[in-house]
């Protein structure tokens, strides 16, 4: 076997689905070119949707409304619990209700620039176009967005932009949008148009005659492994941030669905593009099981600072104004505390590395509301952020109305994911990926309040017409359940679970996960360099080998076995972690959330190298531990010309 980092460069990859012509007309043109399925024939088509978050819930409901037979899966006990529910801050839309100069073009521009010029222009423009319809749709569903006294919708600003285009429902926007999608989905479930399988986890993809034709899934209650066939498969299974163990993701969010699809032929794009969110509650000890985000919206009114002096351990109230460094306001006067996430995170790391961090271990910076409380009054601050303040106090036992919050960056979102074309189709025909599971719209850095926008855009508006086209154009004969590909995939899933159970070693799944996560955080986290990435690439195969010798999972596969679920996901995390490190190693430039210390400007900002790396990296799987093949998708910028991002 060749060395893993000795990857081969394969044929370039191209998006062949986006029409050429004026960018404003491409989506209209694509929808017009798409073939339609006769409404009477739609019920003959079965579509599998895996995941019930914003993208999956919206897709399942919409496809069912259109008449398709949808079979949908989630590992949670109810589709309402998908992790989209935890998004706090808001959802962007180019409504320009504020008359502050916003437009579809500006949202498009901000998103391409915010993504540090590593996203596809056609996709991003479509996202901006569709954004306005999302707000209409959600209001019609009864989503209780914040409103002004006149009864119209309120908005606020978010990081990386200078307009107020973020619609919100206090600090629970994700919850409210998800419940809207969940309720629409529930209506279709009750009507018999969606067959829902909760507590059921996808463990493999069925590829038959070169097309995605179903999945292998495990009933998490009984342990029964079954195959489900369909005419197309939609993955809406979210991101892979939990590979780091500590992240703001829900504990059970995992990469197994997208990774198994990758192993079956779907290219994985830009895995090293991970987002580290600047405003999370710092960890309190080794027992920490996850990290909690404090919404970026807090940066609208909170001011971030550290002491000017190193090792200043005085309580914050005793540090006079002229001995504080409001470092974001100082370095980036135009955007101040509202710089994009990658910049805010790195700045926090820098001041902590200088020995000016606060709190236990010096791993924190202050987010201070004293000025806002003086200016607006405590009640006004409570009305905007009350639930976030309560959450902070519950976790830390400190009152943020009295004492500044302490925050530190944490893994939050993954821009990378399955490579998809303009139709959101992966390199496996018939396999589509929506929401965070794909790589499409955020480039190397996602702007705040854009994840909800993309999830709902994909699910409600983009996927349904493109999936339609796929189903209309392709002959899809029924797949016999005894087809060799089906039988083989099911057997592989069973074998892997039995193998895990048979080791009977001495280490728990969580102990391996923590170790892998710490390794990634150290070597493939906020700052990366060649030596560290090579260390990680050497260590991961050793960890994997140790896993197969020492893992211990009590119980059997024929019951609810949460330790088995964890161990099985870990097998995929090891392979994914390896690809992330390789991708980070090969991309010897800094861009967005990917910061290579070797590639920075004299004042420490990320230095892109567009000539060499102005592409999306789509990786092809060749075997566990075997060097993958790199396919480059060149990115052309006709409308937003790449410049060094400046938020100063």
């Amino acid at each position, binding site marked *: 076997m060749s060395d893993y980092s000795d990857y081969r460069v394969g044929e370039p990859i191209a998006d062949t689905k986006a029409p050429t012509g004026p960018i404003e007309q491409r989506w209209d043109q694509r929808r017009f070119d798409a073939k339609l399925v006769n409404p009477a024939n739609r019920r003959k088509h079965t579509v599998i949707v895996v995941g019930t978050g914003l993208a999956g819930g*919206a897709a399942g*409901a*919409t496809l069912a*409304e259109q008449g398709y037979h949808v079979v949908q899966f989630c590992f*949670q*006990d*109810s589709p*309402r*619990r998908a*992790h989209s*529910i*935890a998004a706090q801050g808001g959802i962007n839309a180019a409504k320009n*209700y504020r008359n502050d100069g916003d437009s579809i073009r500006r949202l498009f521009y901000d998103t391409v620039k915010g993504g540090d010029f590593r996203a596809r222009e056609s996709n991003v423009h479509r996202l901006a176009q569709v954004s306005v*319809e999302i707000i*209409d*749709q959600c*209001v*019609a*569903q*009864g989503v*209780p967005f914040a*409103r*002004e*006294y006149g*009864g*119209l*919708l309120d908005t606020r600003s978010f990081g990386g932009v200078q307009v107020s285009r973020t619609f919100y429902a*206090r600090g629970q926007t994700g*919850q409210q949008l998800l419940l809207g999608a969940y*309720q*629409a989905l*529930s*209506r279709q*479930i*009750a009507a018999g148009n969606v067959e829902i399988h909760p507590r059921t986890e996808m463990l493999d993809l069925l590829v038959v005659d070169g097309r995605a034709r179903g999945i292998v899934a495990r009933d998490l*209650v009984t342990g029964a492994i079954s195959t489900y066939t369909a005419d197309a498969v939609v993955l809406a299974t979210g991101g892979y941030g939990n590979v780091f163990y500590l992240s703001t993701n*829900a*504990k059970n*969010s995992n990469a197994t669905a997208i990774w198994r699809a990758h192993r079956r032929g779907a290219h994985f794009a830009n895995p090293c593009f991970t987002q580290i969110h600047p405003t999370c509650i710092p960890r309190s*000890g080794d*027992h920490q*099981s*996850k990290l*909690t985000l404090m919404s970026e919206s807090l940066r609208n009114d909170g001011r971030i600072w550290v002491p000017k002096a190193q090792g200043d351990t005085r309580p914050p109230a005793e540090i006079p104004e002229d001995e504080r460094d409001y470092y974001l306001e100082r370095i980036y006067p135009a955007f101040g505390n509202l710089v994009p996430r990658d910049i805010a995170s790195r700045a926090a790391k820098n001041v902590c590395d200088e020995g000016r961090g606060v709190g236990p271990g010096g791993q924190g910076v202050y987010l201070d509301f004293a000025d806002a409380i003086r200016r607006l009054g405590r009640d006004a601050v409570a009305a905007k952020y009350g639930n976030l303040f309560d*959450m902070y106090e*519950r*976790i830390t036992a400190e009152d943020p109305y009295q004492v500044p919050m302490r925050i530190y960056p944490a893994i939050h979102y993954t821009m990378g994911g399955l490579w998809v074309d303009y139709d959101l189709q992966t390199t496996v025909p018939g396999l589509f990926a929506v929401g965070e599971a794909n790589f499409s719209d955020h480039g190397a850095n996602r702007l705040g309040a854009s994840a909800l926008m993309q999830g709902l855009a994909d699910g*409600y*508006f983009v996927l349904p017409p493109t999936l339609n086209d796929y189903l209309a154009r392709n002959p899809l004969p029924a797949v016999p359940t005894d087809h060799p590909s089906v039988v083989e995939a099911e057997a592989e899933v069973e074998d892997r679970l039995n193998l895990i159970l048979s080791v*009977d070693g*001495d280490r*728990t*799944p*969580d102990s391996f996960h923590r170790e892998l996560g710490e390794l990634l955080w150290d070597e493939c986290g906020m700052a990366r360099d060649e030596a560290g990435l090579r260390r990680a690439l050497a260590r991961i195969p050793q960890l994997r080998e140790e896993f197969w010798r020492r893992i*211990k999972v*009590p119980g059997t596969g024929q*019951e*609810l076995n*949460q*330790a088995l679920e964890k161990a099985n996901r870990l097998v995929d995390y090891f392979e994914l972690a390896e690809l992330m490190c390789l991708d980070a190693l090969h991309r010897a430039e800094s861009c967005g959330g990917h910061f290579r210390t070797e590639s920075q400007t004299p004042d420490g900002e990320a230095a892109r190298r567009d000539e060499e790396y102005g592409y999306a990296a789509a990786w092809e799987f060749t075997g566990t531990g075997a060097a993958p093949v790199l396919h480059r998708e060149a990115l052309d910028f006709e409308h937003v010309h790449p410049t060094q991002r400046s938020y100063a």
Partner: protein
Amino acid sequence: MNLTLRIWRQAGPDAPGSMTTYQVGGISPDMSFLEMLDTLNEELITLGDQPVAFDHDCREGICGACGMVINGQAHGPERTTTCQLHMRHFQDGDTIDVEPWRAAAFPVVKDLVVDRSAFDRIIGSGGYISAPTGSAPDAHATPVPKEAADTAFEHAECIGCGACVAACPNGSAMLFTSAKVVHLNVLPQGAPERASRVRNMVTAMDAEGFGGCTNTGECATACPKGIPLPSIAAMNREFLRAARG
């Protein structure tokens, strides 16, 4: 902190269950209740015993997956979700009882895991506004008075954890159901289905085997999201209004 835990263990839906005693040590006051259980489970796995099964996911109090009866109270002594309950609210040497939600409509799946799918079926019976994708008018076409928007939001905060049912001596789902009825019925967008929504949801709720309401108020006291008790009265008014036609 060192603690004695008495935890309900039940191998499956039809297996008999019992309280089992465990000792845990080295518990930090900054741990969440679930992190304390993680510590126990790590020890159990190492010993080759089955870890305690419990539902959990976001661990930040919003997904509604977690929930256990702690010392007789749904979600324990603080008014929050189990994942947001921290060990600083307990004392060194405490004995803590941990049980699943107890309600006829929430059968035990294993240990502390229960089946709450009845809630999904109540929502499916009418807890939505029929607005197929693409059919919506501009978001500003219908202004919503701020008061109505705020009332809708207050009720929409329900996370579907089931604490209200677990806390109720009758195992009633009135607070859960009323939260959704009020959220949608107070909005102009929800008006066309106002009567059918409340009728269908109450019928579904009854069919799932939840008990009736006797105004005990334990539901609202246990609710981690503060859904107000008058929500139930508002649903009753909606139901009577619908019955009168």
